[in-house]
């Protein structure tokens, strides 16, 4: 009973919602180009599925590459910040500036400067994705237990040992939390960049397909692409959450709370 509810309850809510949607659209004769019923979206998902999946793959490649770059670069930057207070003070404000500047506003510039479309999209998605990792990991690296730090000093630990044996493990849950946020952001960044870049031709991402479907009033396909996009976001989150739980299962509250209650 308790195991089924967390799955059953949201599925039931979804089913009721879709049923109401379908019924309302049919009763009120709402035209498909304004609001398609779920059945039409499902049909479009079936017929356009293969070509949409191809586009999804393009977007996914940008997303994952950006996420990997964000994890690597963000982690390294945080490490640098934790090693030198001066470096942190000098560079952190610029990381914030990069974060608060809307990506839609700088994407056109990046697309002008970077000639390879894939790389341009990658840079855009990366800018959005890297900040949560940098800020979270920096906090994590600086939040080692004070008494443990004292103990390490007492036993004559080197700076390197404090980092390796104490600060890095302390920072791991923070880094992983940042990674989970960045997973979703990388996808959003990739989609926004595609909207701006609007690359046509062979390599069209899912965002461009949404635009295209909108222009052609193929609203069911637009919805189908949206469904795929959200599903992708959910899957990315679930995978990152799974990795996080696996890595932290022995010790961190966020991963162990369930078997203790």
């Amino acid at each position, binding site marked *: 009973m308790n195991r089924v509810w967390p799955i059953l309850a949201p599925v039931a809510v979804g089913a009721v919602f879709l049923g109401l949607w379908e019924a309302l659209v049919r009763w009120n004769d709402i035209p498909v180009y304004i609001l398609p019923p779920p059945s039409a979206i499902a049909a479009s998902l079936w017929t356009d599925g293969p070509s949409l999946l191809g586009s999804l793959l393009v977007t996914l490649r940008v997303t994952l590459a950006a996420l990997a770059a964000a994890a690597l670069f963000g982690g390294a930057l945080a490490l640098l910040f934790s090693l030198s207070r001066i470096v942190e003070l000098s560079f952190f404000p610029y990381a914030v500036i990069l974060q608060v500047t809307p990506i839609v506003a700088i994407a056109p510039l990046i697309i002008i400067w970077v000639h390879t479309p894939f790389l341009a999209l990658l840079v855009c998605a990366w800018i959005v994705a890297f900040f949560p990792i940098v800020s979270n990991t920096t906090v994590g690296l600086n939040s080692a*237990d004070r*008494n*443990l730090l*004292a*103990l*390490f*000093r*007492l*036993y*004559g*630990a080197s700076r390197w*040992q404090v980092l390796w*044996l*104490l600060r890095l*493990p302390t920072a*791991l849950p923070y880094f992983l939390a940042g990674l989970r946020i960045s997973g979703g952001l990388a996808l959003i960044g990739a989609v926004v960049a595609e909207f701006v870049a609007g690359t046509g031709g062979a390599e069209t991402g899912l965002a461009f397909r949404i635009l295209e479907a909108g222009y052609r009033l193929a609203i069911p396909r637009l919805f189908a692409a949206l469904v795929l996009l959200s599903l992708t976001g959910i899957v990315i989150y679930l995978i990152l959450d799974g990795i996080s739980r696996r890595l932290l299962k*022995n*010790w*961190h*509250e966020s991963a*162990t709370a369930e078997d*203790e209650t």
Partner: protein
Amino acid sequence: MRRGEFVSLLGPSGCGKSTLLRIVAGLAEPSSGTCRVALGDRRAGHIGFVFQDPTLMPWSNVANNVLLPFRIAHRVDIAARARVAAAIEAVGLGGFERAYPHQLSGGMRMRVSIARALVTDPDLLLLDEPFAALDEITRLALNDDLLRLWERHRPTILFVTHSVFESVYLSTRIAVMARRPGRIVADLSVDLPQPRQRAVRMAPGYAAMCETVSAALTTAMSGEAA
């Protein structure tokens, strides 16, 4: 302090007991004067420290937590592993080597912390209110365990507490501190039979000693109010 003594630092909170302990450990600098530690020296591993919290690494299991001093000293070998196993056995946690801190009770975590402090066989063991956060039953059990460990290895122990009964039961000497400014106002030796057993707590000498120590503590507190 003489070698092999068990000295308790007793006093109201804020009188600088913990600070004194940190100065002895070399973790803090005295605001004036110097601190001489004549036993051995402050080389790594000569001093064991137990904090009020168990202060374990949650990502490491019991064995790896106790192994930490050796890992820092780059001396992880078979001898070190054997001493880790012996230390864990000595605090009564044999069989829990692979358990993680979150799987243990508060008392067991404190035992791990004590095992880690003892594993290097230190000359000086510093304990900063180690049992303050534990329940009474666990506290009594750990008091006895600490005594047995002290009798076996005879390190010099400096034990910070704010419990009169605990200090009388455990120590050979009690230093009573007062605050503002933090200072030692009384130095009392405890002449109760060794080895201490639970029966000591019922002996008339124990009650009388507790009375004396309480009085010294009251004097320390009243001096500050005046």
